């Protein structure tokens, strides 16, 4: 069962993380852990929307309009993706109007 994130939070790409769109998909590299990650077409779109949106709530609403998916299922998928991204150090969570709340860079 994925952790449920507060919709009022926003995400930002963690320092030392590179990301590129390749075709409809995306690839990521965490330079700290030297691990590569791939996102399929849907994951890549969720990544884009999450990083561009003002909040997770805004991202959720955008995705709900784009995909033919029940709201509860989308929330679950979003939480699952976010949990993975946070656990792998690829994104940081923060409150709206605040900086990231986890793993703040020390320099």
């Amino acid at each position: 069962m994925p952790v449920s994130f507060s919709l009022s939070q926003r995400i930002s790409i963690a320092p030392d993380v590179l990301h590129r769109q390749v075709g409809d998909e995306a690839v990521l590299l965490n330079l700290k852990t030297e691990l590569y990650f791939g996102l399929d077409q849907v994951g890549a779109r969720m990544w884009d929307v999450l990083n561009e949106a003002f909040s997770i709530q805004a991202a959720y609403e955008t995705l709900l309009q784009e995909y033919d998916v029940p709201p509860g299922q989308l929330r679950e998928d979003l939480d699952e993706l976010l949990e993975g991204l946070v656990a792998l150090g690829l994104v940081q969570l923060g409150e709206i109007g605040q900086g990231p709340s986890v793993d703040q860079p020390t320099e």
Partner: protein
Amino acid sequence: MTAPAAFPHPPYRYCVYGTTISSEIPLALPEQGEGRLARVELRVAPASHFADAIRNVPFERPVEDWNHRASLPDGSSYLRWDGIGEFLTSADGCHIWCRQFEDAPFESFQVYMLGQALAVVLVKRGFEPLHATAAVVDGRAIVFLGHSGFGKSSLAACFLAAGHRLLTDDLLILHESAGRILAYPGPPRIKLFPKVAGELLGHIASGVPMNPGARKLILPVHARRNQAHPVALGAMYSLAAPYDARRPQSVRIESLSPREAFLEFVAHTFNDRIVNMRRLERQFTMAARLASVATVKKLSYPRVLDRLPDVRAAVLSDLDRIDLPVAACAGPIVAWS
């Protein structure tokens, strides 16, 4: 780092992997025009030069017990293959100092120099060599990505046997220029097991073992079978592992998504022991760019020598269906070198 120099200006000049090599010693390379990508000076140094350089320097954990490597405090790198020779590459990637061990065949020494040692230099110069062998079909590089023992050279030899030219064996340099990705020629030689060489190329007499413990032979490739100039990148095929339990009894070619292609490029970077943040960033950029513009497929086939012509036929048939040119990309030029 300096070393005694017999010649102020090395008298021999060659071009390989798009790189001009000014050498103190003659090499088994065709003397040809300038390599536009980089310039490297190759000099011979005495044993004392290497002994002094590595004094009190710890060696890296060896992958093969006859290969020794060390990173020196000044950023230069030391490489040695027992029974073959030793090399020092400068931190800026502009110089290689070499010493051929007694009794080592020059062909073997040169394979390690123009393969492993030069690859270290190219990485230091900002290039990202790929572990790949390539043949030329209809004027384009057809690339076989694969780890050691995956059959890259055997498959390329099968293309040679059908009249295609060899572009490079084992190490591939790609460079994007003016919206095209060009593939650069390697040394005119191919490394094959004697049985493969005998059956596909019909000659093994001119072959020299790669190293004292190896069965693979280094075979020179005649000028008419060797591609001397860079060509546009065509399609790329990543070879499935020969020991894969699911290996097919027939030839199978599957398209890879850009994400899957990206991972193939990352997995097949040459000299993956050099890991630092700058290189990882560069690899990431290179792999993402290539994955966006190149046609990459997975090629699975039974590792049976007399089936190689079927594999060649399947690849040629697949090439007919691919909408080339893939190398002409409309996006901005992203040089990863």
